[in-house]
């Protein structure tokens, strides 16, 4: 075999090998990414407005949200998942703030970080009234902390 053709065949082989490896790696990553996530839906109903009391927020454990209801201002839904590393925060009526048990982040009632390692305020989710009169929360839609759903009762 001539030197030239050896070199070019060699290069072609190398390129083919590298592409085969990258394609396989890509396939592995894609294989490991689930095509369907069997996870709870991000939009769900949480019940009728009348189910919720005024005063301290209601904690819904399965959904990991706090539902606030205010006589004038209406409904707001906060994410109970700490923005630091995902622990579930608790709401303390005594100082009207959220406390995270994991690394001690404290959030004010409007979700902003008071102190601790949390980098961002707690999220607020959009809450709307479904056609059947129930409250519906959409975890894919975050809203500003000032967002309120006013329900005339």
């Amino acid at each position: 075999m001539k030197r030239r053709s050896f070199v070019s065949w060699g290069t072609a082989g190398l390129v083919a090998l590298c592409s085969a490896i990258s394609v396989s790696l890509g396939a592995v990553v894609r294989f490991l990414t689930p095509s369907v996530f069997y996870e709870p839906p991000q939009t769900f109903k949480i019940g009728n407005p009348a189910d919720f009391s005024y005063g301290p927020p209601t904690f819904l454990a399965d959904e990991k949200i706090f539902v606030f209801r205010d006589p004038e201002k209406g409904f707001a839904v906060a994410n109970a998942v700490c923005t630091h590393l995902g622990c579930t925060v608790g709401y303390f009526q005594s100082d009207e703030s959220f406390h995270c048990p994991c690394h001690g982040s404290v959030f004010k009632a409007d979700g902003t970080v008071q102190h601790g390692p949390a980098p961002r305020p707690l999220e607020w989710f959009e809450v709307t009234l479904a056609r059947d009169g129930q409250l519906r929360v959409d975890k894919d839609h975050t809203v500003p902390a000032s967002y309120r759903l006013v329900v005339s009762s």
Partner: protein
Amino acid sequence: MNPLRDAWQSIVRRDPLSTDKGKSELVFLNVWLHIHPAKVKKENLKVKHTFYLGFITFFLFLVLVTSGVALMFYYRPDAPQAYQDMKDLQFVVYLGSFLRNMHRWAAHGMVICVFLHMCRVFYTGSYKRPRQFNWVIGVVLFLLTLGLSFTGYLLPWDQLAFWAITVGTNIGSYAPLVGARIRELLLGGHTVGESALLRFYVLHVAVLPVLMTLLTMVHFWRVRKDGGLSRPVWKLKEEKSAQLVTIGAPVASAALAAVPASKDKTYGLMEVVTGKPIFETVSMEEEEDTVFSYPYAFFREGIALLVTVTTVMAVSLFWKAPLEELANPAKTPNPAKAPWYFLGLQELVSHSALLGGVIVPTLAVLALIAIPYIDSNPSRRPADRKWAIRAFTLFVVVNVVLIIVGTFFRGPGWAMVPPWVHITGAE
């Protein structure tokens, strides 16, 4: 003709062990033992050189494989079934809780021993030429050990497991660009759930143990090919020590004196190729400082094995592996702590997730890997490497202090508390 003797000889082909030839053949005709040299230097058998920590780490790994396979007979990686199976192992399965204890305590022990082994290798300067790459393999083995512990931690599916892994994997998602993606691949979802449990299980019982086994083999092979264990530091003479470690340096192809080959001898490969061996060779006068591996080295390793296994068994008889309530995604225990060897990390993370959870650990691992290449001081004598020793000691102390603070001084809300709170349960 005696068929029994015939059968024996078909299995064991060596000469009787009373002869030197038999002693060597025991080592190099045996697939398990031939990783040893037939003869070893007496000084390398000394406990105060290695503390047998590498061996103990390996033996703990064997205990883990054995007890782990036993546990697999009763464990299903499915939520919340997994927790039920743990309860069964604890209270129903014959010897179940004992095996579980052994698996848990051996895992903790392995993390400790692999770390101590790394310290021993550092303080004796054994990562220097020609052993640089084996140190790198060692660092990977260390990371694999942590990976095995981490993946195993989720499997009981109790509160401890669930929250440690929630926090742990969220740390990863702070890594720029790829973080969130890696977390999704690891968990097979966006929260710790059934797919995460299955993935961690597969990593824990198949992927990581296989990698660990393969790399351990490479590690042992390299110890042997790097010339056996390094000389104990107390044997390094002042003038000679620099020269001893430069042996791996490439030599200007000095042709060896050609000796005419004899027709009535067979030659091994090392006798016909030219060039110097990369490792410290045993010269004639050192030959008398060596002993046969059988029985001297094997006896000591056997003792180390015995001590390791009995210690794990004894500990497992008296101390139970913890099992908390069933995992509850809605309720974070307060405080929620990672496994103790990650508490240093958690301590860092409690100040900043990106800096403490990603940047500092990544730099630390890279620095560990780079040690043999940065440290250009050829001498292995402690007196010649004061700064290296100080720097590494600082690294060790910082780690230990962070772990102690995380374990004993952090209470609910990760607030500083005096350590007795944990003992008395008072607040």
